């Protein structure tokens, strides 16, 4: 058996473990790392010293920094404060909810992880739809789709954005210029499509609710003000960090340290709520992918994809978009992104294709792909769990009715947008 075949089997085995959820994905990735190290050393694919160079420590620092910032902001009540202001501003009649909830979802998933954004917005949705006596189910389907789309807004919005952004050297502004407009277009299309089909807003009786006091979400105004100030300062520094000669990981970790020091929030408590599973998953999967790359398997895959696209850069870009979308419709989008990055790097080095459109197609693909089925993304699964708990058991079928079609529509729009981007950047 060739080395490529052994690593192909190992990689498929680990992806299957992640897909079937037989272990926590971090444990599966660490098993993969140990097996890859063993086979890599036995077949002289890697040396022991270079194993640790596979781990992208800059990314780990960036992700931990962002996690801490978001956790402190949440404790300070910033997100709930903003949610109450939005409810008061937009209003909560059934018709206005179709604007309110998507707006809230987009805003939160731009700064929080998609799943954290989904839990906050879904909880508010259940509470508010009960008050105005409408069915929360269609709103939650809409939110689970939009949470995934919102994940493409900024570099800090999702792990794939951070992974690709740091690897491609994209700045905070690049995301505002290239990714944010597509996110806006896709959100508007989704809301319009849902207003006419699932939400049937014209048939619902208009009912308003009382205004809320946003300060009820804030326990300590001093902590709130300081958190908000440091967060805004961190965002500004993220925008201009390339001009001051530091990386985004330095700004994010600096912001996290400043927040912990100036708000007095208990570090131990913050650390307990950080998603360490994802951090350990990174460690393991970086070593696995690094070893698989050294075995030549990913280069082989890159050549297959290039052959399929007949060396046409536009076709290859769109192929990456669709390939990543369908893969992340089945597997978590983080391993998909980690696997496709070296494939894209190989294609760029060997063909001289323009890098930027390829990286954007990967970011767009993994974001849109999370909506292909109700189980394609953690947001869909969380929405289903919450509705189940509230006694609504029809999420899966209702999603299949409209969700898949909506996703295909979104993928079609993303394809047109990516092609235009290819023409502009290529």
């Amino acid at each position, binding site marked *: 058996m060739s080395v490529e075949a052994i690593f192909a089997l190992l990689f498929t085995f680990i992806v299957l473990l992640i897909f079937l959820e037989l272990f926590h994905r971090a444990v599966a990735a660490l098993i993969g790392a140990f097996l890859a190290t063993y086979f890599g050393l036995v077949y002289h694919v890697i040396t022991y010293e270079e194993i640790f160079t596979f781990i992208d420590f800059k990314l780990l620092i960036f992700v931990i920094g962002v996690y801490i910032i978001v956790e402190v902001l949440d404790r300070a009540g910033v997100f709930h404060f903003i949610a109450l202001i939005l409810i008061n501003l937009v209003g909560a009649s059934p018709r206005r909810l179709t604007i309110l909830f998507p707006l809230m979802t987009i805003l939160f998933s731009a700064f929080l992880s998609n799943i954290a954004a989904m839990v906050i917005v879904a*909880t508010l949705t259940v*509470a508010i739809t009960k008050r105005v006596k409408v069915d929360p189910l269609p709103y939650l389907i809409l939110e689970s789709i939009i949470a995934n789309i919102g994940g493409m807004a900024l570099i800090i919005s999702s792990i794939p954005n951070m992974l690709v952004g740091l690897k491609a050297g994209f700045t905070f502004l690049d995301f505002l210029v290239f990714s944010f407009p597509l996110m806006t277009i896709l959100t508007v299309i989704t809301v319009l499509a849902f207003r006419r089909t699932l939400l049937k807003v014209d048939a619902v009786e208009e009912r308003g609710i009382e205004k809320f006091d946003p300060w*009820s979400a804030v326990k300590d105004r001093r902590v709130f003000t300081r958190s908000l100030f440091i967060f805004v300062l961190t965002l500004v520094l993220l925008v201009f960090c390339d001009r001051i000669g530091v990386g985004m990981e330095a700004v994010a970790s600096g912001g996290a340290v400043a927040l912990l020091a100036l708000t007095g929030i208990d570090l131990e408590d913050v650390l307990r709520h950080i998603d360490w599973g994802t951090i350990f998953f990174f460690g393991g999967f970086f070593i696995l992918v690094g070893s698989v790359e050294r075995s030549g398997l990913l280069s082989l895959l890159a050549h297959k994809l290039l052959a399929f696209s007949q060396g046409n850069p536009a076709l290859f870009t769109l192929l990456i978009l669709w390939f990543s979308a369908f893969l992340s419709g089945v597997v978590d989008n983080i391993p998909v992104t980690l696997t496709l990055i070296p494939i894209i790097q190989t294609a760029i080095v060997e063909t001289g294709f323009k890098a930027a459109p390829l990286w954007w197609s990967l970011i767009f693909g993994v974001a849109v792909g999370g909506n292909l089925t109700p*189980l394609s993304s953690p947001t869909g*699964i*969380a929405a289903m*769990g919450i509705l*189940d*708990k509230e006694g609504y058991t029809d999420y899966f079928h209702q999603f299949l009715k409209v969700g898949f079609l909506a996703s295909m529509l979104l993928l079609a729009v993303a394809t047109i947008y990516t092609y235009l981007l290819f023409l502009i950047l290529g």
Partner: protein
Amino acid sequence: MLKKTLDKLKSYTRRERMVEYEEERRRVNEILSKPSIAIRVELPPGFEDMREEFMSLEHDDAFLSAVKDLVRKTLLMKRLKR
């Protein structure tokens, strides 16, 4: 087959996400409802023989109305002192 997979996933979501959801639901309910306080009042010394009457104050409308009045007056005084 599909039902089995769904049930498995549902149990997974319940296990993994429901704790998070319960916490969030408590927080949202707290934020969206009117602020309230719960005060523990002990039977004053020397009234041990009136235990029953004391316990029934919890449901005594006239008493509760008087407490509400007292809260209003106290807050009014605090506002004036600001």
